[in-house]
């Protein structure tokens, strides 16, 4: 059964509805209707719906010329004729290339044989409640009368359908019932629909095909209102090329085989899911650690670089550009470039080059060229700017982004490549406990790639609480923080619309965290969406809380975590777990690189 939502007008409202499977969107061009779109109605508004949604103009005894002009201007697909339009009129509308939906007003004595003459010119009928005016009564007619309709033209059922009618609609069994026409029964005010109520209704009717992919990226790279590709024209061709190819290549048998083989025998996957017994006792619950720290190069970053280097190879790219903050992604990129014999240029903020000397040495030993970024504050944000500038000047290169940030398709690409983490968690947890779903998944978030990977296969599992932990540095209100979701607002960074730390003039501000990997003023658009929609809970941990959590893990489980992962561990102090809760914490990396910081704190 198809769904038509009728009486639309407002762009913001329509954007909400694009999250639902609306097959037909109705716009009322009858000036006497309270849902009349008005004289100033913008042509761009119906176009907010995807192509798959048919746009319907609703007219009442309108002059044909006027109707055709509106049809052209608003790119309408179908015309709903709601007055006493003749067969000839319908014929002309059809000849002009529109689908014709002819409305008829029902009462108990309606004579269906009066429709016979319309049979060959109308694509659909629409059966509405008979009123003094032309529909819009908000009342239902007696649906029993439909039993008398024996024609062959499929029909829309209209007139006062509301949320309470789901059960009765399920009982309807007319074989020509084609669509439901929903209007005043789902309104907050005339022409403003209640998207939540509609969603519940569609769920009840099991018509909500989109529900499953609520957190997936749409074809233009948006998660809800976040994402997109806000890039200069200079990068358009590069980004288009990647958008066109990435899904095809990721789905190819060759890629799947190569990726799985490398993850298995080069990265060392699957990584263990370790039951942390002492930690569990400490917090009075059941804590499992997903051991990304045990991968080759010591962090989850390699899952992504292995995948992207294969993508680069299949796309015939020879020169690889990357940005890095602490150097983990730089090392993971230099590693795969060495493995595949590709030229590797890593941009790293000049300040980070100084702070992270061991990783700079690793990259150099692996044959990469490390270019210090001397612009701005000389950290990750500036390294990313420089990498993008390099890409503008060298469009034949492949830009290997390290997190779920950047223009579409990068956030989706990196999320998919990191989703191996939650895929394994599900399998391992099911073996361990009999249930693939834990009560909590906890991960730290800078740009957000390890969290995206740990959350991915749980996004639509409502019983799993997703907890993202940002770095709040010296405290969220200290001015020295990287807690983007907590203190940021909507903006644009590195080609993506997302939550962002910025000043009142829209200048991007410098974040601070003791952990260089979380020291980013933006956050991946998926996470902005998870935060705003309430799907994930966002917490934050200060430098000190993270340092202490690292010590607790080291002493209780014999594992020294990366400072980034220590922020996730710090969240264990902030949540009230039940005894029988199952908690999975993504231990994204190991702590070797942070020993200097740890020594300063604890010695």
């Amino acid at each position, binding site marked *: 059964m198809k769904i038509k939502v009728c009486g639309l007008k407002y762009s913001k409202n329509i954007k909400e509805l694009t999250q639902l499977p609306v097959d037909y969107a109705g716009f009322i061009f009858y000036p006497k209707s309270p849902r009349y779109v008005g004289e100033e109605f913008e042509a761009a508004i119906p176009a907010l719906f995807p192509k798959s949604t048919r746009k319907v103009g609703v007219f009442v005894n309108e002059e044909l010329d006027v109707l055709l002009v509106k049809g052209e201007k608003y790119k309408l697909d179908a015309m709903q004729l709601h007055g006493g339009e003749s067969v000839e009129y319908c014929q002309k509308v059809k000849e002009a290339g529109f689908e014709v939906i002819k409305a008829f007003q029902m009462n108990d004595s309606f004579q269906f044989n009066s429709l016979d003459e319309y049979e060959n010119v109308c694509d659909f009928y629409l059966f509405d409640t008979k009123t003094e005016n032309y529909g819009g009564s908000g009342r239902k007619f007696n649906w029993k009368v439909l039993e008398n309709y024996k024609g062959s033209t499929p029909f829309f059922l209209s007139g006062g359908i509301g949320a309470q009618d789901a059960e009765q609609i399920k009982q309807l069994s007319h074989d020509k019932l084609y669509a439901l026409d929903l209007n005043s029964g789902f309104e907050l005010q005339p022409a403003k629909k209640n998207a939540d109520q509609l969603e519940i209704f569609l769920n009840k009717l099991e018509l909500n095909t989109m529900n499953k992919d609520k957190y997936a990226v749409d074809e233009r790279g948006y998660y809800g209102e976040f994402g997109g590709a806000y890039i*200069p024209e*200079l990068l358009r*061709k590069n980004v288009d090329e990647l958008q066109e190819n990435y899904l095809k290549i990721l789905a190819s048998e060759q890629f799947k085989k190569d990726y799985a083989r490398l993850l298995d025998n080069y990265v060392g996957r699957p990584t263990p899911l370790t039951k942390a017994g002492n930690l569990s006792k400490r917090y009075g619950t059941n804590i499992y650690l997903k051991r990304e720290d045990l991968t080759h190069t010591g962090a989850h970053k390699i899952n992504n670089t292995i995948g992207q280097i294969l993508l680069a190879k299949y796309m015939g790219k020879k020169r690889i550009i990357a940005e890095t903050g602490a150097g983990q992604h730089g090392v993971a990129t230099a590693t795969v470039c060495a493995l595949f014999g590709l030229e590797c240029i890593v941009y790293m903020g000049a300040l980070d080059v100084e702070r992270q000397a061991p990783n700079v040495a690793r990259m150099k030993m692996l044959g990469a060229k490390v270019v210090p970024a001397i612009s*701005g504050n000389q950290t990750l944000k500036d390294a990313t700017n420089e990498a993008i500038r390099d890409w503008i000047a060298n469009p034949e290169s492949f830009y290997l982004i390290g997190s779920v940030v950047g223009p579409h398709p990068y956030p989706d690409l990196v999320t998919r490549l990191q989703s191996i983490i939650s895929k394994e968690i599900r399998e391992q947890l099911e073996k361990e406990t009999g249930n693939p779903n834990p009560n909590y998944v906890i991960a730290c978030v800078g740009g957000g790639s390890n969290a995206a990977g740990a959350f991915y296969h749980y996004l639509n599992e409502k019983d799993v609480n997703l907890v993202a932990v940002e770095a709040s540095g010296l405290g969220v209100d200290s001015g020295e923080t990287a807690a983007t979701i907590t203190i940021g607002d909507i*903006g*644009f*960074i590195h080609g993506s619309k997302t939550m962002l730390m*910025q000043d009142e003039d*829209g200048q991007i501000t410098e974040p601070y965290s003791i952990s260089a990997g979380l020291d980013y003023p933006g956050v991946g658009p998926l996470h902005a969406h998870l935060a705003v929609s309430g799907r994930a809970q966002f917490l934050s941990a200060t430098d000190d809380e993270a340092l202490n959590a690292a010590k607790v893990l080291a002493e209780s489980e014999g594992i020294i975590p990366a400072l980034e992962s220590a922020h996730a561990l710090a969240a264990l102090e902030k949540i009230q777990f039940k005894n029988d809760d199952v908690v999975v914490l993504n231990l994204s990396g190991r702590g070797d690189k942070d020993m200097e910081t740890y020594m300063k704190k604890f010695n």
Partner: protein
Amino acid sequence: MNRIDQLFQNKQKDILSIYFPAGYPKLEDTLPTLQLLQAKGVDLVEIGIPFSDPLADGPVIQSAAKQALDNGMSLQLLFDQLKDARKTIKIPLILMGYWNTVYKFGVDAFLTECQNVGIDGVILPDLPLEEYQEEYKVKFEAAGVHNVLLVTPQTTDKRLAIIEKAASGFLYMVSTAATTGGALQASKEREAYFKKIAALDIPSLIGFGIHDKASFQHAASFSNGAIIGTAFIKALEKGNTSEFLESLQ
């Protein structure tokens, strides 16, 4: 009539456009620089809105933008500085900047200010055409502000057709795959690209890598004119703007 349209109606060849960041080198330099440019016969000016993260710019414009920000420059201050500009400045004015600053300012407020101070167009390189058309085009048109679009050597023919249809004012023809401030090497392919864009129905100016009289004349021979940014900023830095502008004549 929009001053940009008027300019291209009255003059088809050798149009000189100069780019400089607002509030540079000193905070209060914006208006005096505009007056100098007009006095020296510059046809069109692009005023840069300083931004912390100018992705498409090379080191010279980056550091000029940073200095302007350090001076205390902001979009609101720019509008304040331009409040009485139209009493003396008659040439068309364009604001060039990154989308985040405009979005944060508020698009409606931004356009109102543009109308108040007499801005004829904007160049917002990282606002995608599709988003512009769906969300903002109607508003920009109502405010009489052209959204000048970029084309580059990498722009495919298919995309060029879309851009041509959507273009208003003129096309900003990026000379080469680079950030701003590079050098422009002559080549057969580049000339073919210039000719292809020049043959379109909309006027075009060439920018990126234009830095002296020779490169200006070369570029202008393929289009309606050219844009100089980095080289002029260097002159601002050195304090020899008059000589620089005269050297272009």
